[in-house]
């Protein structure tokens, strides 16, 4: 018969501290208390059956067999689970977590900064969408050509305008919803004094290449004084942006501006007037066909002559308005400047171009980050939630 002693408060053993228990279990401590914990551990371990040699051999065979089966024979679900576990391990490691914690705010800050620093994009977009009721004039101060180009001459604004400017070329195809816009630009180029004439010639050749022409030009070159050339070009509106870019490659740009004016009302009025005159002429012709009296015939013929003159004038006016829409006037000023770089490759132009390339690359990178960063954050949150849920489900088995 086993005698179990009734516990008494005086019999309560001393309460060891956690380090003492830990030291006892790791064999670092001696004494009755330490011995007690080690023996308790041995007794708890003895509750489990020993590993029989046959089982050990079977385990070895199973491990070898299952391990050699390899990744390929893993069921798809388990493969996905393992891949996710590996990703979460990678994301969960301290180094990557730190990098993520730094990169995410930096990327978000960069996106916000670009959005704030480059406000030109948004107004241009709005401007283009509003079909140019108001006139917009972007100009940059001398010596700040890059900012002028960045703010005023971006492709987003010019592309839709150019497409609309094509409308006047086919007058009958213009519908009420289409707008006709007159575009203009001015650009100031800087060249060395001895290269002013050469640059002016290149500008004229460029105008011809782009399908336009030189409306007027004035080149002034004097020995010992900086020369100057003024050219007024007429260029197809749809080629305006490309032409301005080409002009910028001839010599360094000092200033650049673009303007746009909506001439839809004028265009529509001219068109209506021409249509009315044509309709009147046709009505007169029909009346002439029906007329029998000589006096009536002569009266109609006189009116026809007047209407014919009116049609000629109205057609000229209409074509003039159409040309204003389809062609853009570009004023080019070439300033002779001893400090100006040529059109070729120089250090400053190279740096400038490099800056443009870097800016473009940064913009592309930001767009990619703007897509990837939220996705990565979402993925990390999902994986974290998935791990927590899985852990809780497992822990629930113990409850």
């Amino acid at each position, binding site marked *: 018969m*086993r*005698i*179990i*002693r009734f*516990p008494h408060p005086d019999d309560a*053993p001393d*309460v060891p*501290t*956690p380090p003492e*228990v*830990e030291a006892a*279990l*790791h*064999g670092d401590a001696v004494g009755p208390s330490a*011995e*007690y*914990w080690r*023996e*308790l*551990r*041995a*007794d*708890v*371990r*003895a*509750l*489990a*059956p*020993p*590993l029989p040699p046959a*089982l*050990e051999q*079977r*385990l*070895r065979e*199973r*491990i070898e067999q*299952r*391990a050699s089966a390899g*990744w390929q024979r893993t069921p798809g679900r388990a493969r996905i689970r393992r891949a996710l576990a590996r990703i979460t391990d990678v994301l969960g*490691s301290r180094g990557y977590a730190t990098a993520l914690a730094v990169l995410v705010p930096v990327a978000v800050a960069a996106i916000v900064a670009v959005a704030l620093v480059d406000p030109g994009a948004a107004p241009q977009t709005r401007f283009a969408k509003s079909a140019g009721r108001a006139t917009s004039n972007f100009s940059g101060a001398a010596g700040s050509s890059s900012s002028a180009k960045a703010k005023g001459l971006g492709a987003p604004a010019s592309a839709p305008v150019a497409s609309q400017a094509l409308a006047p070329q086919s007058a009958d195809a213009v519908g009420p919803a289409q707008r006709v816009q007159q575009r203009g630009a001015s650009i100031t180029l800087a060249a060395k004094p001895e290269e002013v004439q050469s640059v002016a010639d290149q500008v004229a050749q460029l105008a011809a290449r782009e399908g336009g022409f030189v409306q007027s030009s004035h080149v002034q070159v004097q020995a010992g004084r900086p020369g100057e050339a003024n050219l007024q070009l007429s260029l197809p509106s749809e080629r305006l942006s490309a032409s301005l870019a080409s002009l910028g490659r001839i010599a360094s740009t000092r200033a650049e501006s673009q303007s746009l004016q909506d001439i839809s009302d004028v265009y529509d009025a001219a068109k209506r007037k021409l249509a009315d005159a044509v309709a009147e002429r046709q009505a007169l012709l029909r009346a002439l066909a029906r007329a029998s009296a000589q006096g009536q015939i002569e009266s109609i013929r006189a009116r026809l002559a007047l209407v014919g003159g009116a049609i000629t004038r109205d057609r000229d006016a209409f074509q003039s308005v159409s040309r204003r829409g389809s062609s853009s006037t570009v004023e080019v000023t070439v300033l002779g400047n001893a400090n100006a770089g040529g059109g070729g490759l120089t250090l400053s132009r190279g740096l400038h171009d490099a800056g443009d390339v870097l800016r473009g690359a940064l913009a592309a990178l930001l767009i990619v980050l703007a897509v990837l960063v939220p996705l990565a954050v979402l993925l990390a949150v999902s994986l974290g939630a998935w791990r927590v849920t899985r*852990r809780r*489900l*497992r*822990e*629930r*088995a*113990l*409850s």
Partner: protein
Amino acid sequence: MFSSDERSKSSSAGEALDSAGFEQVFRDCAVDLHGYAFSLLRDAAAAEDVTALAFERLYRSRARLDRTRGTPRAWLFAIARNAALDELRRRRRQPLETHGSGHADTAVAGGEEIARVERGAALQTALQALMPRERELVLLKFHGELTNAELARVLGISESNAGTRLHRALLKLRDACAQLGIEDVA
């Protein structure tokens, strides 16, 4: 059973776990891992499955084993714990439910053996007196011989929390043993 020094020596030698290293880990941990799995599941076949699964995963991952994040032993016990809990969840079965003594098929020969079996039954009862999470912690500590830091990593809690919970569970186990008259467990 091997000492802590031997264990740490075998589990931290070299960066990559080659075949010899894996064999060493298997020799060091197989018995303990199987015992731990059996204590959790109380099912010999399931314990064998869990043990095999843990070693299989260690074998496959031996090339990319990150020693800085824990020893292979701790890694093995973490895998075994997850697999055992998954198994428990799958079977919707209470952990550590009474299945008699772990290996009661041992032939009972004399009075000493009877006393040993009685002591084992009493200790089993004392373990049952613990909360399931406390019991699991004690089993993980005793079978795995893990440090508190390794326990924390396996359980996904802080080291201090693991130490506190373990200490509380051990004291409760000691009190339960005392109440059952197991004064000298050895």
